[in-house]
């Protein structure tokens, strides 16, 4: 399965890209996609407890199962307004 990962703000700076494509095994969850990313970019690990995630433009939980073609976004703590 192939998913698109979108990263914002400091997460984007850490990874050096605002969008990545990743091949993932069947049964993967958002959490497992995040763990793969964090092993690739260790500085992401400090966000483990503070990120939010969205799948296909809806906020989602880390244990959500991922499907082929999903757009997964990882969001650091927000600061709009």
């Amino acid at each position, binding site marked *: 399965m192939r998913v698109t990962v979108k990263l*914002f703000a400091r997460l984007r700076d850490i990874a050096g890209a605002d969008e990545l494509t990743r091949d993932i095994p069947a049964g993967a969850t958002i959490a497992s996609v995040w763990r793969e990313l964090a092993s690739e970019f260790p500085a992401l690990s400090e966000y483990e407890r*503070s990120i*939010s995630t*969205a799948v296909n*433009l809806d906020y989602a939980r880390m244990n959500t199962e991922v499907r082929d073609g999903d757009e997964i976004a990882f969001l650091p703590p*927000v*600061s*709009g*307004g």
Partner: protein
Amino acid sequence: MKLPLLAIGRERLELEPLVAAVQGDADGAIATFLGLVRNHNLGRGVHHLEYEAYAPLAVKAFERIAREVADRWSDTSLALHHRVGRLEVGEASIAIAAASPHRANAFAACRYAIERVKQIAPIWKHEFFDGGDVWIEGATADPDDERARSEAERVACA
């Protein structure tokens, strides 16, 4: 073209179009809010800000906030525009207008909306200050966090 009530974009923000968009003949009050880039933060001299957003999700977050406002203060109507990109000191990053037959609900809806934007809108400010820059990180966005939502309502009604 009719002004969208909820929007995110790079254009300069103005209150008057938002006021005109929410005003109805039954309304006796409109409360407005402008959030501005200030020249200092945490003791640092701020030069400018760059706002970034996950725009389509941000608009959905605004829609959720508007629904929450309508559920809580059913006689109000809300307009909310957020700006992204580079903003200089003194420029507006967010403009909100809330109309109601009575002032109490207009004020409350307006305050609630800005509190909720700060809690759940996927928007980030990158602060450029004298000698460096930093991403500002506030709340972990969780629209279903009822404790946060009720805190916004408490503040709005204080």
